[in-house]
């Protein structure tokens, strides 16, 4: 069973609907026992970094997710959920993240003249072949964000160009993150969710 971490994130229900459509069973929960017992965790997220991390901490979820992921449980962070996998963010102050992948979350540079937020379909460039996610090469997925991740290239599977290189799908061992919204990215997005689910259950 996959667990979608329930902490009132904006896209939670749409993520659940996407898995329902794929007929992949998921439970929406904040219950520590269910999170401990599940095959894989999905961390959704929309909104600001600081308040979202604060909510995870208040509910005792931050340490639990971190502990489970470090013990080898598959984890998929989506959008803000992906950004929270990293060490810290400068969105309205300086906030610590889960620190599961080295890197930081920063604002788009103002000098590029690109409109912020980045809102729309951008193209994935495959930076490293991971076989399971090679289908994303040159595919467009849906992005909505004002901050982006800066991290070592070795964690970036696909990236999109928005004046800067925007990590689109990141991976460190069994920990995955998508800056785009797979639940809003049509057939290719659904395939991302399906691929993660297969890996989690096969593990």
């Amino acid at each position, binding site marked *: 069973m996959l667990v979608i971490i329930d902490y009132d994130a904006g896209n939670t229900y749409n993520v659940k609907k996407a898995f329902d459509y794929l007929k992949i069973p998921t439970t929406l929960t904040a219950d520590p026992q269910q999170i401990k017992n599940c095959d894989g965790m999905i961390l959704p997220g929309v*909104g600001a970094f600081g308040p979202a991390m604060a909510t995870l901490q208040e509910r005792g979820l931050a340490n639990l997710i971190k502990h489970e992921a470090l013990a080898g449980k598959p984890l998929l962070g989506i959008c803000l959920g992906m950004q929270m996998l990293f060490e810290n963010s400068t969105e309205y102050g300086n906030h610590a993240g889960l620190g599961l992948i080295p890197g930081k979350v920063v604002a788009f540079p103002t000098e590029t003249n690109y409109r912020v*937020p980045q*809102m729309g379909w951008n193209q994935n460039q495959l930076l490293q072949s991971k076989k399971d996610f090679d289908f994303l090469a040159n595919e467009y997925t849906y992005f909505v964000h004002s901050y982006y991740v800066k991290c070592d290239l070795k964690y970036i599977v696909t990236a999109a160009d928005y004046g800067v290189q925007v990590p689109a799908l990141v991976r460190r061992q069994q920990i995955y993150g998508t800056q785009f919204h797979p639940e*809003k990215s049509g057939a290719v997005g659904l395939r991302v969710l399906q691929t993660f689910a297969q890996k989690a259950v096969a593990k």
Partner: protein
Amino acid sequence: MLAKRIIPCLDVDQGRVKKGVNFLNLTDVGDPAEIAAEYQRQGADELVFLDITATNQRRKTMTEVVEQVSRQVFMPLTVGGGITSIAEIQALLKAGADKISLNSAAISNPSLITAGAKKFGNQCIVVAIDVKTDQASGKHFVYTHGGRQKTSFEAVEWAKRAVNLGAGELLITSMDQDGMKTGFAIDLYRKLGAAVDVPIIASGGAGNLQDFVDVFQQADVAGALAASVFHYRELTIAQVKESLKQAGVVIR
């Protein structure tokens, strides 16, 4: 590169798509979920649902529509029409909407833009602006209540203010062009594009393939919205995208 978006708009009345939609050979041509699914197959990048119901039951019905559509259509959904409160916004987002479009309420109660942006993020709040040109002065004035009421606001002035208040996107309909099928109001979008730095969606006037090419090549807009050309299948989304691609416009 970010792709330009092609956005069909659906008018929903009491839970049913109202304008004739004749591209589907369906028994129930007015079903929003079926029509949305067909647009997804055609390659739409986003859908806008405009609630035109004028009854007290309206919000509940629209919430059900969004709930249904979002179970089988996986692209961004924007909902607008008569939304006046944070509670309504929240219910629609929970049902599956990604963005909420505010029009008349944004003018009468601008603090709703800010409250919505603070609670749900700027990316979630679209301010829709209906614009008509005053023939005598050439000024672009903002209209509300489905284009029935003229305001004293000029389009550029109100657009800037809406963005300062928290709007993450602007949906600009040219009432002069709307339904004319003679092309988008490119001058208007140029002016607005220079004035604000959030994405702008152009609406009103799409009649043929070249109209889409022109608006993307001549103005800095992120997307183009159309209703009738798609509903009546005068153009398919695939045709529009193919023609944009030929012209070198980045599309998905």
